[in-house]
């Protein structure tokens, strides 16, 4: 009796498992950074429809989210990501340099240096802006407490740090003064979460901090989720243009036989439809035509790029965020 039942279950399982292949189902794992959950929910839905219409195949897309650096590490350690959509190019460079999972020139394989959407760093403040925060200078005032995740583990926090640094260097004109400014800023940080979503939760749920340094998209999302009556967005005069890139993980897609669908998935980003999805989720589209159309929905501010202000990621990483780098030195000085 028991054996019979087991047999039936076994047969059923084989049918079910095989069934997936017979009917033409593709699966993809997209390993992404922290605040893109909602973006990729919308994007995946659109791509699934598009893939069914153009090939007659269904595709099931799994998502994984977390701090960008942590996600890169997981992929190198064997997380089977077909595509990675991380917070900054350096984390994908790591996959190429350390893991050999994709060629080092990966960024040139897709249009616009593999950056289908951009964002920037803005301030989220408590409703009515009680501490009257207008620009970067206001963050280092006494009585102001600032929230940002840890730049050593969070991609978003590295952008926060670099945005502050870039502002100070532009304003005060020297690296030393920029460093002093960023040090003063981090002295006002009471909690260092490991990822952007964690910092948002600490700010929103725990009521810690007067201002949260956040991705523009994350700030808008917090407004939408928790109601505009609780928080306001403050746009500084200057900030950094954040460029989160996307890439195919060659070693994984070749193993899974998913190269075609993964390629189509990433290329789908460059369609007008997908660019509009980005805009709807408060990411700035990189398609010039779409960007012009939705420009009024985004705040106007001066944006500098990483390349202009700092050069290449590998250099920035070594100088600022590596062990014993400028970020570590700031805390060391403060402790002494």
């Amino acid at each position: 009796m028991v054996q019979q039942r087991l047999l039936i279950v076994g047969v059923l399982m084989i049918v079910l498992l095989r069934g997936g292949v017979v009917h033409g189902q593709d699966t993809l794992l997209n390993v992404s950074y922290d605040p893109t959950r909602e973006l990729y929910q919308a994007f995946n839905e659109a791509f699934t429809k598009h893939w069914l219409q153009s090939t007659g195949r269904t595709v099931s897309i799994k998502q994984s989210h977390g701090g960008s650096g942590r996600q890169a590490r997981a992929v190198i350690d064997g997380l089977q990501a077909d595509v990675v959509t991380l917070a900054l190019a350096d984390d994908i460079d790591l996959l190429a340099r350390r893991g050999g999972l994709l060629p080092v020139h990966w960024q040139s394989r897709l249009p616009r240096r593999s950056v289908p959407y951009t964002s920037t760093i803005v301030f989220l403040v408590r409703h009515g802006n009680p501490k009257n925060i207008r620009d970067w200078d206001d963050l280092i005032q006494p009585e102001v407490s600032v929230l940002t995740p840890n730049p050593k583990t969070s991609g978003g926090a590295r952008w926060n740090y670099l945005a502050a640094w870039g502002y100070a260097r532009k304003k005060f004109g020297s690296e030393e003064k920029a460093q002093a400014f960023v040090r003063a800023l981090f002295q006002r940080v009471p909690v260092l979460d490991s990822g952007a979503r964690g910092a948002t939760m600490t700010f929103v749920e725990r009521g810690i901090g007067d201002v949260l340094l956040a991705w523009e998209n994350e700030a808008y999302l917090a407004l939408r989720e928790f109601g505009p009556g609780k928080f306001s967005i403050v746009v500084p005069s200057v900030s950094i243009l954040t460029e989160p890139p996307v890439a195919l993980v060659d070693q994984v897609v070749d193993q899974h036989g998913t190269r075609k669908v993964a390629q189509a998935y990433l290329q789908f980003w460059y369609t007008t439809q997908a660019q509009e999805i980005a805009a709807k989720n408060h990411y700035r589209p990189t398609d010039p035509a779409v960007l012009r159309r939705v420009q009024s929905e985004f705040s106007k501010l001066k944006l500098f790029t990483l390349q202009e202000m700092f050069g290449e990621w590998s250099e920035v990483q070594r100088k600022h965020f590596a062990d014993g780098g400028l970020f570590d030195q700031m805390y060391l000085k403060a402790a002494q």
Partner: protein
Amino acid sequence: MTRAVVPASRVIPGFGMTLGVTVTYVGLVVLLPLVAVAVHAWQLSVADFWRVVTAPRVMAAYRLSFGAALFSASVSVAFGLLVAWVLVRYEFFGRQLLDALVDLPFALPTAVAGISLAAIYAPNGWIGAILQPLGWRVAFTPVGIVVALVFIGFPFVVRTTQPVLAALAKELEEAATTLGASRWQIFQRIIFPCLIPALLTGFSLAFARAVGEYGSVIFIAGNLPFVSEIVPLVIVTKLEQFDQAGATAVAVTMLMMAFLILLGIHGIQWHLRRTLQMK
């Protein structure tokens, strides 16, 4: 009185086999992973190893981790003894329920514990809101770390003390009473000495757990370098930056310090047992 020398031929058979199994099992389950950690750390030269493990930031983390663990284990001993006492000595409504509640911190995923504690002790949480006007901050300070460690460590003390307390021979106390001892004297001279080994075991378990605790602490600690950054977080951060050798160097040092402290506690226990036997 001289102590009996262990006889060459044992009364209970199977010593060779059971010892063999024990050594193999402990070797595979405990020692092998630790050896792997040590081997990784050897990728560094002695000078580099020293530089990594004595970096000011790491030293601050050692002080915090071991200090908070020792302190919270002491708190757990005090209150764990009290709870065990109440559970064993008194009959009251809801005792079974209270008894079962003690184990909950064992079962709860540590991350859940950390998130709930942070929610309660944050300035806008139930307890945090009361403490805030007094100028006391718990969540996102080193105090928060101690709160989390007490939460996860306290069942160890209750569970190690409870059976000893229950098995304590009533006759001793009765005899003491007939000899005119006061209640406090009975506790001080008879009950407490019998409980010391169990309390020490509870202390070392709570301490060991607290030193390595990660999940619950990171949610309530604030994680600021030099202020509220625990050693396990330093290790995880190093790993996330692909500094495997550095991470394992810190881990090995931490392990050795913990081992020495535990060894010290066992030494005290061993000494106590001997003096008790001598009496």
